[in-house]
């Protein structure tokens, strides 16, 4: 069995792509390489921001040794929770993307595909437009993430239920029902936009571009278990996802509990993406981009892919967010713009590479 899987690895179209340089760096010690990148990104995110603080001040504040209360506030109330939320959301989105790509056996799959992100957007738009009318005076602060999460979960559940035929989850049905639900959710979101005033319309627009600006310690506390627990479960799915790469029937013949695997992938992805989207809005391209980069470096075996993807996703989002709040300071760019700005060109290169090596 292991021999078969190793064969898949070497035969994979992606590992066949001509990214020799990247592979060379990565192959020697990929975990150390990505972990180092994450540490650098976290340091940069804590040290660089619109408020100019010396590196020494940041370090001192971090350990409550500083004498400058302002530096301590900036580091502890603003940069640290934001960096932590960035790490968690980045890891959650990237791993969800890897899981979805494995489930659909399609490298172009985004974690939003089974309707989680559009469902969450619909929930968020509903709160932005109707929140104050239905619950006057209630703080939108907590209602918005809650409804976005619920929206994502409900839609994902509906997609999943519709795709189960006689106890078997049909992947193609999952895809098609996902597309249908996405269309319905977008229509509902569009209708809410129509009902909204200018302020609400702007809120919806900015929400769909993603931002970590709302990061607070309470969010870190709520989000951490929501992402970390699914993340810790995913390694148990690794062998099954590798086998699934061969095809559903083949994986079943190899003795993998395929139905259980599909259920778990859907559940974990829904929780992770729902949680991420609820606190940060729609941050584009991390789920699509990061698993690909990691696959190019270490190959498609999920055992290594999942932890590295988590580290890589965290690195990209923390780094992108550092740029987002620094580049137009004292204003702030939506972080989704930065991740897409990095992700878009990469996606193009990837497509061109695939066209050459795969003749799509």
């Amino acid at each position, binding site marked *: 069995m292991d021999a078969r899987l190793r064969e898949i690895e070497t035969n994979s179209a992606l590992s066949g792509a001509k990214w020799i340089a990247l592979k060379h760096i990565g192959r020697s010690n990929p975990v150390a390489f990505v972990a180092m990148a994450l540490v650098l990104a976290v340091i940069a995110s804590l040290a660089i921001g619109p408020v100019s603080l010396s590196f020494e001040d940041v370090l001192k504040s971090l350990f409550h040794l500083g004498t400058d209360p302002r530096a301590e506030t900036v580091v502890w109330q*603003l940069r640290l929770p934001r960096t932590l939320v960035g790490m968690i959301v980045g890891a959650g989105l990237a791993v969800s993307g890897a899981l979805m790509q494995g489930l659909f056996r399609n490298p172009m799959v985004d974690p939003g595909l089974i309707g989680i992100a559009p469902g969450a957007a619909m929930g968020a738009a509903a709160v932005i437009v109707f929140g104050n009318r239905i619950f006057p005076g209630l703080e939108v602060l907590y209602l918005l993430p809650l409804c976005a999460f619920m929206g994502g979960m409900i839609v994902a559940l509906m997609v999943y239920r519709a795709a189960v035929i006689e106890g078997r989850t049909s992947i193609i049905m999952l895809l098609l029902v996902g597309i249908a639900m996405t269309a319905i959710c977008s229509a509902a979101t569009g209708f809410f936009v129509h009902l909204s*005033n200018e*302020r609400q319309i702007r809120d919806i627009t*900015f929400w769909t571009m993603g931002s970590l600006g709302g990061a607070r310690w309470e969010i870190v506390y709520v989000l951490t278990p929501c992402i970390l627990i699914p993340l810790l479960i995913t390694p148990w799915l690794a062998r099954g996802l590798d086998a699934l790469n061969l095809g559903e029937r083949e994986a079943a013949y190899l003795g993998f509990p395929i139905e259980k695997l599909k259920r778990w992938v859907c559940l974990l992805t829904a929780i992770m993406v729902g949680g991420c989207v609820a606190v940060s809005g729609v941050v584009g391209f991390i789920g699509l981009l990061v698993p690909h980069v990691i696959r190019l470096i270490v190959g498609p075996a999920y055992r290594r892919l999942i932890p590295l993807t988590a580290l890589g996703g965290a690195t990209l989002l923390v780094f992108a967010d550092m740029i987002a709040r620094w580049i137009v300071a*004292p*204003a702030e760019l939506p972080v989704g713009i930065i991740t897409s700005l990095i992700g878009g060109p990469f996606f193009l290169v990837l497509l061109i590479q695939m066209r050459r090596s795969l003749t799509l």
Partner: protein
Amino acid sequence: MNRRQFLEGARIGLGLGFSASVLLWTQGYAQRAIPKRVVIAGGALTEIAVALGAGKNLVGVDTTSLYPPTVVDPLPKIGYLRTLGAEGILSLNPTLLLVSDQAGPPGILDQLRSLKVPMAVVPETFSVDNVRAKIIAVATALSINGKSMLDAVTADLTAVRSVINPIKDRPKVMFILSAAGGRLMVAGTHTAAASMIAFAGGRNAIEEYEGYKPLSNESAVASEPDFILMSGQTVESAGAIDTIKSLPAIASLSAAKAGRIAIMDTLYLLGFGPRIAHAALDLAKCIHPKIIPPFLPNRPWMHA
């Protein structure tokens, strides 16, 4: 405020009634120093602060603060009113943060409060009297005596009201926010435009919906407005007024055929700052050509 001052204020208050309470308030603050580094989020608040003479103390404004351009253009921008970032604001070292209660994203005000930046939150609505409340709030926060400005704006508003209120005839006015791509975005109820139209002695032509929404050509015709009101920016982006007039939805309106089209600067018309009385009067002169306009003094804040 010490005891002597209070007694003095109370004595004047007994003698002069309501106006003295404003005086008391202004006296109490006149002795404090104006905050040196002021950051403002909210266009009307910026306009009031500059009119009060605090322009040189501003160190940052949001992107809705566009007037007066000579003051706000060179200033660092802290982003759009609804997408403020705490660290960016903090990086300007403000000694006073003046924010509209419309600021966002949700939670930003609490976040800023927890950073212990001296902050004043000013409630904003699309009502004419809110302008007076804003002048009081901004002057208080800046420790500037705002009485003369408040009296001036109140006098201007009273002068406009005295001419508009007796008018029985209320023409229907349609405010077109944008005509991009030939599609009309028209003001409904609960908009700044609807408030201004009502204050200037008109009726908003569209009362079927709230906010600014795309209006179908047929509904535009069915609403039969007596006047069309547009912003100068709309005309500018369309190229020329004739381009807008030739749009099917507009061309079939009798108001357009008769040339009853008013074009006003959006910041001036919908700013809800100290220039509000002048803006309302300018609009009233368009939709009520027969009125005898009151004389409004040329206030210092009328010049950018």
